[in-house]
């Protein structure tokens, strides 16, 4: 099990405090490597639950919720409403890196919102959707980070990940935790 630094707690007994951070595993769990977002998010959730509870003070300001989704665009934006920060884990096909390469970047650095799960082409990009949401007065995260894993097998139905993706899960999971820790430090 990955050792997480910092003061993090599981969501157990969250009580009336609304989670401030939403971690989303994005993708299609029955489409080969496209299911990596779900797998990493689920593993991350397990890791969180196995940790010792943090102090009440930390709990209040760092509550994390984990979800697995197959949404994009407006639907994804709607799911983000009410959180201060969010992390989205997804497959990437830049074809510039070998399969299994983990990359972290803020959503605003994604050069096109018409791409990928964040931009269900049936409605709009996540960036555009967030602009729409903010225009409408929705409370949306001030920080959205993407944790991307380069994948190659995305068109074959399967519940299994290919070996390079499977091997990248601990690194991606650790990357999610590091982002959370950087947010603690800034809080």
């Amino acid at each position: 099990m990955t050792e997480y630094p910092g003061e993090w707690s599981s969501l157990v007994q969250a009580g009336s405090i609304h989670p401030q951070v939403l971690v989303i595993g994005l993708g299609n769990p029955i489409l080969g490597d496209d299911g990596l977002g779900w797998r990493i998010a689920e593993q991350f959730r397990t890791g969180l639950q196995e940790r010792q509870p943090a102090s009440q003070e930390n709990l209040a300001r760092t509550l994390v919720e984990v979800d697995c989704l197959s949404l994009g665009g407006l639907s994804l934006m709607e799911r983000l409403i009410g959180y201060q920060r969010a992390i989205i884990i997804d497959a990437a096909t830049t074809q510039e890196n070998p399969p299994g390469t983990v990359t972290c970047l803020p959503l605003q650095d994604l050069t096109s919102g018409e791409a990928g799960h964040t931009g269900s082409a049936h409605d709009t990009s996540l960036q555009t959707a967030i602009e729409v949401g903010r225009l409408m007065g929705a409370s949306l995260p001030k920080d959205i980070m993407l944790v991307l894993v380069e994948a190659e097998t995305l068109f074959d139905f399967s519940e299994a990940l290919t070996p390079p993706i499977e091997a990248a899960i601990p690194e991606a999971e650790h990357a999610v935790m590091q982002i959370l820790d950087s947010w603690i430090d800034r809080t």
Partner: protein
Amino acid sequence: MQRISIDPITRLEGHGKIEIFLNEEGDVANTYFQIPELRGFERFCVGRPVEEMPLLTNRICGVCPEAHHMAAAKAADAVYHVDPPPTAKKLRELLYSGFYFTDHTTHFYALGGPDFVMGPDAPVAERNILGVIHKVGLEIGGKVIQARKYGHHIVEIIGGRKVHPCTSIPGGLTKGINEEQRQEIEQIGRWGIDFAQFSLQLFSDIVLGNQGYLDLILGDIYTHKTYSIGLVDENNKVNFYDGKVSVVAPDGERIGKYAPSEYTDWIAEHVEPWTYLKFPYLKKVGWKGFVDGKDSGVYFATPLSRLNAADSMAAPLAQEQYEKFYATLGGKPVHQRLAIHWARLIELLYAAERIVELASDPEITSDNFHTVPTEKPTEGVGIVEAPRGTLTHHYKTDERGILTEVNLIVGTTNNYAPISMSIKKAAQSFITKGSVVTEGMLNRIEMAFRAYDPCFGCATHSLPGQMPLIVTIHDANGNPIEILQRY
């Protein structure tokens, strides 16, 4: 041979690609619309219990999981030879109407609408829902968000979850609704009727009130005279959830109606060497190539074809709009493909009226929402109308209900041939010898298939970091002479 490549297509589910080949004179010789096929779904399903299919198939597609959930549930009913009680059928249709309400709203305001509200020549950065809101007003954005929220809420109340419902099982549903929920849904439906009428008025003001747009819609560029198909009830009125598939010829004659179990008598699939995806066509008419006319088995399955294939709408306000639609466009059937956008809004109104009608039904809160299957499972077909076309699920099982064979014809696949024809015709109209290919010109070609609301292999997206539209124009020797791209 010169070549123009549009790859991938913006605002289209799945990674589509258009190849345009020019001849020596610089005119369009041919076009090819290609999409990557998702592989192995049938193999993935075989060996699983059929009752898993309503949950499994709604993961095929990120856009219309509710449609797959419903088609799978109906096919599973048929496999078990069980007829769900009336309350179950009504609740499923109520859920489905909520889904339609969200889906059609999204298409009009985020996808198809920007072409008209902002105009085909507007910069791509403005030709989206944000542009629409800025142009028409903040109030519109609020209504769109509210409409989506309401539609999702109906799905959640009946389907147990937003977007990916989980309550349909062979013989009906796992849960019903109570009086409080019924009232809430009815109120949503009444709000929805106002919203749909508002949207139709917006379309009327912006599109029908603009002679340039009317000319575009009514002109020959976006017109194809093919067969129309769509589900109809026993009175030949449009129905999204149940009934028979009505087949109407280009001249308006209904050549027949088929029950789900008869689909293989009516639909066959043509194979082309340049694409993995097959082209469905009407078996009784035959495949004659990518051509219009009564002798060609090419058909389309969209909101417009559903209106063409029916005699009327099963709701009074939608019926008024239906009559206005055909009176304005010169009678039935309508073949102008850009009119699909208008037909979609009439269906939006119908969905809202249907929500109110079903939520007002005395049976809707009954506890009799499931019939326990007692017969041995064998084989079954389920058909619903997905927003973007007729959706057919066909399953065979062994006597334990374990799947041995699966066949799906998904909504957009029905339209593969007509979309290909529409792209070619638009390309031939807008790209002629010596013309400089502009952004607006390319968008007009994209508009040809955007009207169909296509969705190929939806939930396949990964993050490439960018999804550019790249158009490369090659000279007669194959050398690139101009590259246009947008991000």
